[in-house]
């Protein structure tokens, strides 16, 4: 009980620190670009209008007063309104979170479905002979190649082949059922090569352990040995990757959403950046950062439950 409380308390403290740092960084970033009032309305050469807008946004006060006001609003969950649409920035970001999370989970799941069997196969057939060795080389070659190809290239190839040529799937994220398949596959392409490699290495290592030899001596078949003994430990070993994979996931999501026109938070970010709509950029960055941190934390806690030795702290 005590430990749970402490861990939760730690979590809250970290999130607070995270939010504080992120928002502060963003606050000063935005001021770096010059006068937001000019961006909003430098249109009118009329200085009276400019002054009115400044007053409206509170830009005529000193930077520290602005900072204070900024925090006062932020604490009430008011991150400002979009300079483009006038809608509440935080609401906009949260609204588009759902499609992104769906895509993320779909991508992660596909990633696991692809990487685990492939990795297990590669690890188990490391020292194989005959036809298995040939298969190992081929699969290994593909995985190595896949590591070098950026995910967005894979996306383009997938679109061209599956969507335009074969017409099995739509090439956009909005139309028709099955529109999530290609984007999810793209995200898996970002993450799978590394995960496959790590699992392969872990499986190969695990197969050298004593308990595996004992199982073999007891007459267990090779596939059973791999599945029941080597693989679970290999997967647990791969949990060190969770942090990197989540970070890679976020990066992959931004690019994937843009390519496929998926109406999620990643595309909102890019669109807002191009429109210089900083309140929305702020909101999206904040939401994403907190979410990623939470995901990391939950993964760590889950891993801790399974095997406390694995937690890297």
């Amino acid at each position: 009980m005590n430990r749970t409380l402490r861990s939760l308390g730690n979590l809250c403290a970290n999130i607070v620190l995270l939010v504080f740092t992120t928002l502060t960084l963003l606050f000063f970033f935005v001021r770096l670009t010059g006068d937001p009032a000019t961006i909003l309305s430098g249109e009118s050469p009329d200085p009276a209008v400019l002054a009115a807008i400044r007053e409206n946004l509170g830009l005529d006060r000193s930077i520290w007063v602005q900072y204070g006001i900024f925090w006062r609003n932020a604490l009430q969950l008011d991150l400002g309104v979009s300079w483009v649409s006038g809608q509440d920035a935080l609401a906009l970001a949260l609204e588009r979170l759902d499609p992104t999370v769906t895509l993320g989970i779909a991508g992660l799941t596909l990633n696991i479905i692809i990487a685990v069997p492939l990795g297990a196969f590669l690890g188990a057939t490391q020292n194989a002979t005959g036809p298995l060795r040939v298969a190992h080389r081929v699969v290994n070659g593909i995985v190595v190649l896949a590591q070098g190809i950026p995910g967005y290239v894979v996306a383009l190839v997938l679109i061209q082949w599956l969507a335009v040529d074969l017409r099995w799937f739509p090439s956009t994220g909005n139309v028709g059922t099955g529109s999530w398949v290609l984007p999810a596959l793209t995200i898996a392409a970002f993450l799978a090569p590394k995960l496959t490699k790590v699992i392969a290495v872990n499986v190969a290592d695990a197969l050298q352990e004593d308990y595996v030899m004992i199982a073999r001596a007891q007459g267990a078949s090779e596939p059973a040995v791999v599945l029941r003994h080597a693989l679970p430990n290999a997967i647990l070993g791969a949990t060190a990757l969770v942090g990197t994979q989540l970070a890679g996931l976020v990066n992959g999501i931004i690019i994937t959403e843009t390519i496929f026109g998926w109406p999620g938070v990643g595309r909102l970010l890019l669109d807002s950046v191009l429109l210089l709509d900083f309140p929305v950029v702020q909101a999206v960055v904040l939401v994403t950062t907190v979410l990623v941190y939470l995901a990391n934390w939950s993964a760590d806690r889950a891993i801790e439950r399974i095997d406390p030795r694995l937690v890297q702290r």
Partner: protein
Amino acid sequence: MHRYGLPLLLAAQFFMTACSAPTPDEKTLAGAAESNVIRIASRRLPPGFANPAVHSGQPSVDIWPAFYDGLTFIDASGEVVPWLASEWRLVSPTRWRFSFRQDVEFSNGERFDATAVKLAVDEILFGYGARELVRNSLLPTVASAELIDDFTLDINTYEPDPLLPKRLSQFYPLPPRYFAEVGPQKFARQPVGTGPFIVERWDAGRVLMRANPKSWRPPAAAGLEFIEIPEPIARRQAIESGQVHLAQYLTAEDGRDLGSRGITIKSAAEPRLRMIVYVVRDGSPLASPLVRRALNHAIDREAIVRHLLAGAGAVATQIGVRASEGFDHELEPFRYDPSEAKELLRRAGYPQGFELEMDLLVVTHTDRAVFEAILADLRDIGVRIKVNTMEYERWRTKLLSGDWRHDLFSFTVALDPLLDITRAWQYLSCDQPRPPFCQPEVSRLIEARGREFDPDTRIAMLREATRLMRLDPPAIPVHELAQTSGYRGLEGYEVHNLILRWDRLRLQSAAPTP
């Protein structure tokens, strides 16, 4: 915890999310099949959602006329005809009087009258959150609106403005009671208008509308569904595979390919001109008119239109578009002649060429390709240009404040809905606080024409200005744009001045709703 717990947990979560989340696709697909809903692939949904004080022009004007009505309407021949406003006249040079139809209701039952119009005017002029952009393009000369009676409104302008009725074709009234109730933010997500359709849902990537049979111009279709598909490839695929009935903003090549596959392709000239404007400063090579002409001769406009635009578009002959008032149809384009260009440069004292810097706004891939070709053409005659790419917002700020630090800037000027050629020239007028290039004679003509109410005199003035600008170009006009759309299984497709008649559009097999 079971060893496979974690992956199983993730998988379970995935399936739960995927299965439980309402799939709007399925609902609308089934809905569409039953109830006659037309699906449209749009390039972009209005960034301001549905608040008319926050945005104007494209892409809003692509969708808003489905549920909003303007005060006037510009028909196929460019004439202003009554729409929500039944008539209008000048009471004094700075005072217009508008009378409105008395038989129109908003979709929530509120009566449409002069109060609704006044509310919209006030909102655009003084509303909190209203954007200058809208005021500048719709009501630049308007000082205030005065109620005369229930259906009559006076609009006071700062100076005589003969173009006001034309501008009001994109001006939409607001329902006073509902607007006051929900406020601008909520109104933008759930708008109420007088048009043929009612907005049911406005999500991040799609807008669903159902027919408003009680509207003064009821629609033929039962509903519209706009789906935002930013990628041109995906839009093409959507219409090809039959997932949408209408796809807007296809590329010309797509149009060519799809035309032979049972898809009706409509290509229309957009009243838009792409040009590069000179910012002339003392000591810069651009101070010499010979140089300004030379650059115009260096660009192979023909090749750009033929190869990069697949023929969709027209070579520009002057700073204006064919559909605009005062366009000189007799004028030939600048001849593509690099050797003459080099000769002119030599005569101006720059045999080795020179370097310039340019502020550039690129939005689509075609923009990029066209400008790369232009820059390469200029490099061939020795003019090396350093490019400074920027986003739309930064570019627009510079345009409106005249704060150009470099020698050239790109400008794709949109002359709709007014088709007013001087919209392109106004930034070059000497009245601007910091004009990139000031030609006093031309400015005088622009200003005089702005006050002139006789059409023939206006046209003569515009022609004279064009002639002057041909001898001494303030810019490099490159080409006019064109828009390609494709549809299948639809009837009643009518576009006037880039505005689609959504009320006339209907699915082919269905009978029009009574």
